[in-house]
């Protein structure tokens, strides 16, 4: 049963989705129960990975080449833990956000399906199963994004759906080529067999390119800002914090695990250069954004860029503790951004609800009337900038050290510029909170909605920064080599 518990983070939200579909009247109640159980199963699984080794199981009882493997190692478990906690926060928030609205009816089953797919991607060990999971993820994400029903939202998510389909097709062609040569789809079997060849190179490029579309890597991010900025707040949080991470996770998995002996420094440099472009362009656009949610969406583009900046460093670093540090820092960065961006979007949603709009220049009153929400934005913002003691501070520290050690000092300029731009756009929002408006009557004005945002933002700063060690031990590393 311990290995069967691997399936729970996938089966539980799926069952929840089915029940909320069938019983729409009590969907919020069922949804929260399913979310709680899903989060608990995810955390339990993380605990098991932490305690022991990697877990894996082959479904169907047929053994590996024939059956589909499901596996959890440190990397999957870290992201699973993130999706569990962030997902729970989003679910609790959604109860308040959608209260009394017809949209909640549609939100719950789709959101639980999205969560199914997300956990499924993190735990999958089979290339074709990953394709199905990615499609489920893309479909439910596009449907959720269009939930506001506004013209912009529908148009943006239609574009997102098509882009996602193009990415999936490209990925699937890569899988087909792999199957042509190796006759199996299991990642662990493949990683033993794959050797450098034109075919392997072509497949990794096709799969990476497809996933880069889904991960919104600059300049393929064009679909992200409108899609994320026009979705309802809990959906924006899920899309920005979790969904793009799934595609990124898969690229990381492919490059460092399956195709580790095929990737080259040149190719990794290209990914890094695109990441650098994402940081600069995304941060700049965030600074120029007129709306709070658009700012958050562009900030996601920039943060994805930081994650891709790790590839040239990982590629150039010889195996050893220093590379372990880099890898763990990359995961830490992704997880921190998950928490911070979810908190940011949830808080932005509250501000938008309160003010009736989210134009940054006119937010002074709304921001000051919601101290807890403004505080959440400040906390999440400091994690996005990379201020201590947030997790991204440690990640940036390790990243910059890695850049020096591998002699790639030029990334330093990008990181520093990106950090300054991030500080500029975050403080542009925060300065609205310091005005001479009348003050509110209490710190927390709507506990059910404000507390999840606050807790998510707080954990991105305090939890992940002050105790980053667990990520290292979860990944099986000894701890940072300073």
């Amino acid at each position, binding site marked *: 049963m311990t290995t069967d518990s691997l*399936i729970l983070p996938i089966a539980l939200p799926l069952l929840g989705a089915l029940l909320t579909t069938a019983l729409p009247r009590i969907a919020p109640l069922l949804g929260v129960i399913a979310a709680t159980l899903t989060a608990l199963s995810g955390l339990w699984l993380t605990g098991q990975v932490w305690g022991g080794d990697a877990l894996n199981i082959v*479904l169907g009882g*047929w053994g590996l080449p024939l059956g*589909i493997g499901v596996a959890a190692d440190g990397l999957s478990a870290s992201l699973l833990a993130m999706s569990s906690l962030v997902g729970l926060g989003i679910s609790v928030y959604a109860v308040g956000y959608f209260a009394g609205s017809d949209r909640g009816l549609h939100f719950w089953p*789709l959101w639980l399906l999205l969560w199914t797919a997300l956990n499924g991607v993190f735990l999958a060990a089979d290339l074709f199963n990953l394709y199905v*999971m990615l499609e*489920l993820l893309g*479909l439910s994400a596009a449907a959720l994004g269009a939930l506001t029903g506004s013209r912009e939202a529908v148009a943006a998510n239609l574009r997102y759906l098509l882009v996602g389909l193009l990415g999936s097709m490209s990925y699937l062609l890569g899988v087909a*080529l792999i199957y042509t*040569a190796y006759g199996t789809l299991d990642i662990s079997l493949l990683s033993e067999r794959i050797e450098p060849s034109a075919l392997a190179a072509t497949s990794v490029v096709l799969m990476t390119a497809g996933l880069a579309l889904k991960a919104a890597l600059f300049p393929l991010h064009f679909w992200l800002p409108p899609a994320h900025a026009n979705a309802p707040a809990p959906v924006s949080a899920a899309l920005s914090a979790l969904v793009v991470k799934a595609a990124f996770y898969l690229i990381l998995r492919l490059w460092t695990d399956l195709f580790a002996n095929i990737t080259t420094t040149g190719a990794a440099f290209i990914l890094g250069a695109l990441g650098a472009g994402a940081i600069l362009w995304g941060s700049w656009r965030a600074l120029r954004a007129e709306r709070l949610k658009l700012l958050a969406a562009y900030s996601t583009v920039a943060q994805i860029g930081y994650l891709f900046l790790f590839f040239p460093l990982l590629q150039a670093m010889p195996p050893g503790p220093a590379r372990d540090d880099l890898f763990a820092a990359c995961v830490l960065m992704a997880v921190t951004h998950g928490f911070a961006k979810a908190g940011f979007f949830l808080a932005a949603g509250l501000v938008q609800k309160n003010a009736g709009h989210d134009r940054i220049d006119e937010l002074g009153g709304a921001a000051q009337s919601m101290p807890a929400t403004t505080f959440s934005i400040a906390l999440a913002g400091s994690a996005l900038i990379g201020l201590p003691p947030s997790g991204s501070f440690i990640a940036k520290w390790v990243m910059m050290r890695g850049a020096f050690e591998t002699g790639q000092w030029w990334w330093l300029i990008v990181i520093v510029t990106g950090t300054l731009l991030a500080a500029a756009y975050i403080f542009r929002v925060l300065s609205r909170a310091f005005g001479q408006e009348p003050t509110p009557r209490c710190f927390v004005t709507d506990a059910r909605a404000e507390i999840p945002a606050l807790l998510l933002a707080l954990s991105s700063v305090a939890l992940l920064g002050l105790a980053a060690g667990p990520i290292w031990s979860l990944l099986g590393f000894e701890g940072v080599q300073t």
Partner: protein
Amino acid sequence: MNRDLSLLIGILVALLAVLLLGVFHSTLALDPGQRLASLALERLPESGVSNPVTAVLLNYRAYDTLLELAVLLAALLGIWSLGPARPGFQPAGPALAAMVDWVVPLAILTGGYLLWVGGHAPGGAFQAGALLGAAGVILRLAGNAGAGLPSEAWQRWLIVLGAGVFSLIGLLLALTGYGFLSYPPGQAKWLILLIETAATIAIGVTLAAAYVGGRPQMAQPPRSPLAPMADPEAKR
């Protein structure tokens, strides 16, 4: 569309295709290929079905199929979230109506046959479900606005039937110690048939409901001020 740009993209795509063809060719040339085929066929007797494709779909890789049902569900839920369905078409003329009276039962019957035959020959839940869905499409084309589907509450239960039965059986098997979606020896045939039946109904209903293209109307659809233009009846 800008001609130069499409030409440029055409050249790029063509280059990509040439490269892919080359890579594909070299792979085929060098690798005579030992696939999963022999293994899949070797274990076929244990799988509970004699059609190898069905064995892969519902036994070896049943997990994929479960998720595929979830994908279908997600698409329909997405469609429903976009708003109520539009009114249907005008009622069929007598010739079409007579044909529909024949075709729909025939499609349902053929679907049942395909479902049963899937165990040992090409066929199975998806083919059968597609036929059921087609029956719904025909009904809607012939003027039945709801495509012959039951009320919304029933539809909700029917569309989750496939994935529901599938995942419940999987979890039950996991609880009883066989492992998620690992059928006990000898029981595979009936379990697969059960799952396939549920999936067929769910797929048929989902496809038909997707064709209707919106949330099912409760009773008589409230006539919105914009409706008449889409309603040919109003024009006469």
